[in-house]
């Protein structure tokens, strides 16, 4: 269905996104409601104006922004989920001169759900992580500080969500880029929000500088693409890709840098560990899950929608070897670096680099495209994309969950040393067990969600490398496509990764807690709730992921890869 911008159908289709924006505006307005009056000039008539002045005690409560943000995200997410249970969505927004701006389909809805789920869990956790102190009486400087930054924090959170949703919906590289920058700028500030630690501001600035360089390069690539094709519409570029010159290839490479930074692929990952370690844990969790998924959308759009060989022509994509190299370097680098890091947040950051490598390996396998006996390469591509989507989605469960457990530890002082985790399983057996399950899921131990996702990714790679050789009856090992070795590389890497994931388990179950951490863990109802949600999702999506797998396949299908 094609709709005009701002028509009735438009609002019907984009109601959840509209709710996000309304919620965003409300967080601006509500804390500022006060008894101010506006005097009509030259008269003595005072009209109540309500913005500014002495704030009302109910609306001015520092707890309001957090609750508003959580409620907004929850409503929007609920609407999206209910809508997508019904099945297919297809709404395209076009301008009067025929440009396609936003497209609402299963693919974009899937990612929106992912983004909102991640941001919702993070903001639930932040209700406790950055608490609002509403009791009356004298407050300490710290508490005033916490109260002061409530509205700012949640505004930035919602902005991130809106930006990410735009990226998911965009059908024009320019719109996509605007959304990307909106989300990125918000996250740069969020990273710097961790004011308790010295590294907070430093890592925020570092992340900002590296990120803006990457964006600049990406933007330069976009301008070259425009030079080559005269348009930034995905459909137009994809249609003309086959007869593009070398300029198109160069532009593609530059755009890859921009998105590669977002998914923290080597060698553009250097800022990621610093940023994650410096940010407070819920924010780091969003960076490691939603932000990465956002970059992955960019990669899928550019690599798969635009730069695949057309239809069912023979041959592989031009980026095949480049991406294969990048993926192997990324996963190995991430895992080897994680082995040596003693800061749990840095370790999780490097593990997220490794996971980016796994997903790049999966995308590489799509690039093998049509070879051997494969008749319809689109089906194989669909399976791989579905696996990547599944992986991105379940990352929200266990990677974010692991960050939230660290967030719980941050509530009683930092979580930047491995020893902060020591004895966690004795101090709080359930939280310790939850963390251990998250670690096992990250390592890919069955029957958890992490195993299922790794399994699907590897199955996707192997299925492409095997192709339809079984039709010949006898198959020789040398007949397989070389992308099979990427699956082996993934397996070797996940075997390496078990070392550092298990180390956390050992520390939690065996070591004696630090002197300063002998008391029970701080309680924090909503952060624990968020951890439980992650835990349940990690286990259930591993045990029976059928619904989600189906959803991923539908999402991948709506990309129409040949």
């Amino acid at each position: 269905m094609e709709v005009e911008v701002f028509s009735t159908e438009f609002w019907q289709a984009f109601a959840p996104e509209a709710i996000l924006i309304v919620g965003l505006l409300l967080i601006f307005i509500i804390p500022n409601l006060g008894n101010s009056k506006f005097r009509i000039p030259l008269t003595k008539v005072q009209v109540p104006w309500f913005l500014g002045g002495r704030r009302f005690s109910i609306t001015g409560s520092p707890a309001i922004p957090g609750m508003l943000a959580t409620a907004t995200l929850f409503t929007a997410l609920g609407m999206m989920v209910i809508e997508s249970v019904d099945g297919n969505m297809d709404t395209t927004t076009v301008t009067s001169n025929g440009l396609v701006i936003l497209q609402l389909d299963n693919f974009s809805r899937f990612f929106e759900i992912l983004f909102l789920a991640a941001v919702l869990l993070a903001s639930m956790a932040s209700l406790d992580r950055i608490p609002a102190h509403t009791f009356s009486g004298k407050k300490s400087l710290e508490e005033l500080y916490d109260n002061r930054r409530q509205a700012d924090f949640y505004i930035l959170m919602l902005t991130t969500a809106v930006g990410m949703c735009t990226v998911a919906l965009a059908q024009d590289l320019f719109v996509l880029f605007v959304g990307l920058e909106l989300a990125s700028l918000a996250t740069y500030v969020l990273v710097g929000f961790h004011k308790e630690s010295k590294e907070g501001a430093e890592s925020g600035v570092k992340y900002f500088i590296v990120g803006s360089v990457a964006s600049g390069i990406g933007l330069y690539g976009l301008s070259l693409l425009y030079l080559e094709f005269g348009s930034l519409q995905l459909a137009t570029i994809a249609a003309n890709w086959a007869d593009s010159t070398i300029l198109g290839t160069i532009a593609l490479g530059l755009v890859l840098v921009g998105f590669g930074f977002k998914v923290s692929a080597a060698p553009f990952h250097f800022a990621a560990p610093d940023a994650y370690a410096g940010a407070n844990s819920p924010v780091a969790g969003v960076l490691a899950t939603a932000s990465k998924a956002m970059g992955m959308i960019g990669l899928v759009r550019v690599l798969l929608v635009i730069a695949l060989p057309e239809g069912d022509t023979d041959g592989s994509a031009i980026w095949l070897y480049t991406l294969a190299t990048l993926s192997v370097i990324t996963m190995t680098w991430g895992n080897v670096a994680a082995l040596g890091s003693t800061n749990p947040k840095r370790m999780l950051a490097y593990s997220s680099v490794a996971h980016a490598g796994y997903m790049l390996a999966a995308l590489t396998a799509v690039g093998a495209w049509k070879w051997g006996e494969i008749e319809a390469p689109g089906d194989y591509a669909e399976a791989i994309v579905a696996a990547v989507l599944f992986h991105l989605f379940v990352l929200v469960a266990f990677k974010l969950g692991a960050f939230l457990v660290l967030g719980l530890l941050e509530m009683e002082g930092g979580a930047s040393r491995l020893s902060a985790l020591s004895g966690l399983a004795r101090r709080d057996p359930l939280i310790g067990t939850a963390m251990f399950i998250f670690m096992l899921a990250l390592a890919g131990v069955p029957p958890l969600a992490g195993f299922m996702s790794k399994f699907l990714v590897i199955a996707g790679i192997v299925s492409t490398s095997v192709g339809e050789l079984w039709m010949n009856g006898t198959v020789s090992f040398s007949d397989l496509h070389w992308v099979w070795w990427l699956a082996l590389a993934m397996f070797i890497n996940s075997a390496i990764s078990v070392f550092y994931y298990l180390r956390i388990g050992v520390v939690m179950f065996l070591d004696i807690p630090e002197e300063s951490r002998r008391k029970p863990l701080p309680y924090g109802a909503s952060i624990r709730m968020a951890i439980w949600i992650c835990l349940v999702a990690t286990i259930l999506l591993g045990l029976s992921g059928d619904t989600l797998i189906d959803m991923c396949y539908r999402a991948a299908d709506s990309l129409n890869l040949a």
Partner: protein
Amino acid sequence: MGSNQALDIKNKEFMLIGGLLIIVAGLMAFFPSLNESDTTVDWISLPLVGFPIIVSCILLAFASQESRARKEVLAVPIRLFTLVASMIPLAISTALFFDWLILVDWDLMYNEYALEKEYVWIETIGVSWHVGMDGLSFPMVWLTTFLVPITIITTWNEKDGATYHPLLLMMGGALIGVFVALDLFLFYVFWELTLIPMFFLILKWGGKDRRYAAQKFFIYTFCASVIMLLGLITLYFLQPEGSGAQYGTVTGRTFDMTVLFSNATAYNMGDNVFLGKDMQNVLFAMLMIGFLVKLPAVPFHTWLPDAHVQAPTGGSMLLAGVMLKMGAYGMLRIPIAIFPDAVVYYQDVIMAIGLISLVWGAIVCLGQTNLKKMVAYSSVSHMGVILLGIASMQPIGYAAALFMMFAHGIISPMLFAVCGAFKHHYHSMEIGAMRGMAKWSPYLAVYMMFAWMASLGLPLLAGFVAELMVMIAFWPEYGWWILLPGAVLAITAAYYLWSMQRTIFEGGDEGQPPESLNGETPPDITLSENIGMIILAIFTVIFGIFPFIALGMMDQWTVAFFEGVFNMGGI
């Protein structure tokens, strides 16, 4: 007041987890059955596999919420409850063998299974919850159900029993899951699931180097099994696409082992070779790596001595008794059944690995000063015998391998129980550090002698039957090479007798208690250890004198297997 509140909150969380587990159990009960006309009772999924795992999860979640002092109090009821819970699978599996519950037809052709049940699990990729038992798996299942209560009894006084014994129960459930799984995916899930309770058993109750040993154990076997998994996935996609209830709605392939076996057999029977020779060899090697590490065979065995020496007694008993057999079971179940041509191709390699394990394990045993390490290396040596049986390519060799798995599964827990008793009462396992213990601990001395004799293959005890059969199968294939395993049997006798002589005999009239006792009088073993070991001893004798109780079923499976896979007649 504050602590009271905290308790309330924790109970809420406990209820949340308990509720979750009950929901999962409920879901299991309502799995849609693949074959709707099949209304027979499912004796495997919940009673044998699900029940121990769920009960132990609930007990663990419950116990973890209590304070240290409360845990001490709770340990006794939880132990008792765990023991009773572990008896239920034992009762069921025994009853199934003797046809007390229902009439089970154990007279099976190749690729036929008793009590088979199949439920839809992950439809999109063709995974089903498919369980069943045959002559290969049933002895192992019975062995597991038998060993779990024995282990619980033998290690009755282990510290922190509120969590220790439920972990043993969980281990048992996961192990049974490995043996009954008839779906590659399910098999892999249980295969990895066994690592987790074992990891904790070593990590929390282990010796001084437990941290290193637990991690080494986990990582070593995990690395091997991911290679196996890659092999399985490649195999999965190399199958022809099909349609039917077992096949994935998206991928068009299935993880169902029975379908895979019948496809492979159909190919291999004709002039074709399933997947081609080259491919068979590669996949066979990939799968075998996973199983050889678990077995363990010599180049991959280094995790075992560490794990055993550091593991608590109960962990060692289950590790040696059942977990090692997972490797041999997996080999016979998957790669050998699917790739018979690759078995022929690799026959000499398997034989070489088996011989090296046998010889190397025995020679290393001679030099050991630690009793438990010696027993651990003797396991490596005995597992080599299983490989020899497989490499012989004779039906009798396969039956021997099966019986070796079974016999070693009864004898080795007893060996480790003896080692555990030394550790527990003498605080030392150094062979040279104590002498003449027969005077102080006559019971322990008797059990030690019995177990050592059983393990070195004394006639009329279970171990002898298997070794004799392997020798018989070995001769026609490899001829005079038989002198090597023969010589190893002599070495085995040497290290066992030598260690026994030094530990329980010698030392004059008064003996020489170890220094670790600090001059106290050496005690004898406790009642619970007595009970556990005597049951093991009784069954060692029973299966030594009447091997056909288990061997009949194994023979039948072997004959059917050779007809189905290698296209050869009976023994």
